[in-house]
């Protein structure tokens, strides 16, 4: 970073605009039944966007679970699960049948410190057992996994959820400016308005198995 370089204000998001972007995002999610909701913290005016998805277990993780089952002498409940044929997860093979699924819970929170959104998530097996960082990594998109492993502690870490106080994984926000700045500058040059949440989540979501349907980029309007 150059000393004295002034960051364009557009790289950051004030909380009011964050709320507005989320509201627009949620409206479209509801219209296509994509599952996002707003979770309000009771007794407070704070909240976050939330989505829960079931993800079929990939083979490498299945092997680990198998070893885990033998080691623990416990039996995991098994269900046949047919992957959604419309699953657009790029680069991840669709799994037609599997013996287990994982429950991923994604939260989008506003960070007043960094003045940007931050993605938190947690993952568990259907028996409630939480996944470790290593297990979560095996579900990370292969294109990102190598980069994450090069500096594992700085990118994806277990953190306390600032509103719930429970352990969650967090994609560290320090890289957000790196990819949002060019996107925002390009939009500005083309005199286009951008819904920050749509652009941001389209980049960070797939890193941890969260897809953003393409219609969000065309149907969700940007705040004025």
């Amino acid at each position, binding site marked *: 970073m150059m000393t004295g370089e002034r960051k364009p204000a557009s790289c950051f998001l004030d909380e009011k605009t964050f709320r507005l972007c989320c509201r627009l995002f949620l409206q479209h999610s509801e219209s296509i039944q994509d599952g996002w909701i707003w979770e309000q913290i009771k007794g407070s005016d704070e909240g976050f966007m939330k989505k829960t998805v079931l993800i079929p277990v990939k083979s490498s993780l299945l092997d680990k679970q198998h070893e885990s089952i033998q080691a623990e002498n416990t039996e995991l409940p098994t269900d046949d699960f047919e992957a959604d044929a419309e699953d657009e997860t790029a680069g991840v093979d669709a799994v037609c049948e599997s013996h287990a699924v994982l429950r991923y819970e994604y939260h989008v929170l506003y960070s007043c410190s960094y003045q940007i959104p931050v993605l938190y998530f947690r993952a568990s097996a259907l028996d409630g057992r939480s996944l470790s960082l290593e297990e979560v990594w095996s579900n990370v998109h292969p294109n990102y996994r190598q980069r994450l492993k090069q500096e594992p502690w700085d990118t994806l*870490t277990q953190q306390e*959820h600032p509103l719930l106080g429970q352990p969650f994984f967090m994609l560290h926000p320090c890289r957000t400016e790196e990819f949002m700045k060019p996107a925002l500058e390009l939009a500005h040059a083309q005199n286009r308005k951008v819904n920050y949440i749509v652009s941001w989540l389209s980049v960070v979501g797939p890193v941890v198995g969260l897809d953003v349907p393409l219609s969000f980029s065309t149907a969700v309007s940007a705040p004025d």
Partner: protein
Amino acid sequence: MIMADDKDVLRDVWFGRIPACFTLSPDETTEREAEPYYLLLPRVSYLTLVTDKVKKHFLKVMKAEDVEEMWFEHEGTPLKWHYPIGVLFDLHASNSALPWNITVHFKNFPEQDLLHCSTNSVIEAHFMSCIKEADALKHKGQVINDMQKKDHKQLWMGLQNDKFDQFWAMNRKLMEYPTEEGGFRYIPFRIYQTMSDRPFIQTLFRPVSSEGQALTLGDLLKELFPAAIEDEPKKFQVMIHGIEPLLETPIQWLSEHLSHPDNFLHISIIPAPSD
């Protein structure tokens, strides 16, 4: 700006200690009786960083197959290692008699309450993450980003090895601000209370009012936790590093001198003891 005579405050904070007694949980399987382990805990460090000796002590009486990740509990409450030790004590034990009684567990890790901590690298990552966040608040992240990797390492090594001078040689840069600004952009702080489901309160707070007046601890609490400063009867204690600063204390000075090494002002609010 830090004056020479305020360096005593920095040292007193850094070298603050809490006497603790570690006892193995009766639920643990042992080959013979486990003696308690007594230790002076540094307030500004992290439980998992300073308890290798505790672990070794109890492993002597346990079989390897009975040992999983070590975790700590006080009177039924799992202790979050990622909070500074002094904050945990102020929150959970400051109105009990010393030493601080901590129960040690090696199984049934409470997944829903505690972060895993497999190596010191996890603590380092958490610590540096807090410093970066604090600098984002104080200087838009410019100071920490201008530092080199070895400077970050020096901050961590200073904390890990309990070396005040090594740490503060680097940390003083993070405590500087332009004279004309009168203080940091925003104060990095967290307010903890045991009576809430929420882990802490954190929001944006400037050290100087729009009229240029220095804001105080009382101003911060009036905005975020007014119940803490109702005086009659006194319902709450507001603790920073185990003391109750005057509400008139300027928040900028507190941030420079009473912050933890992670550069956050950790403020604990607990019920006042009923006399």
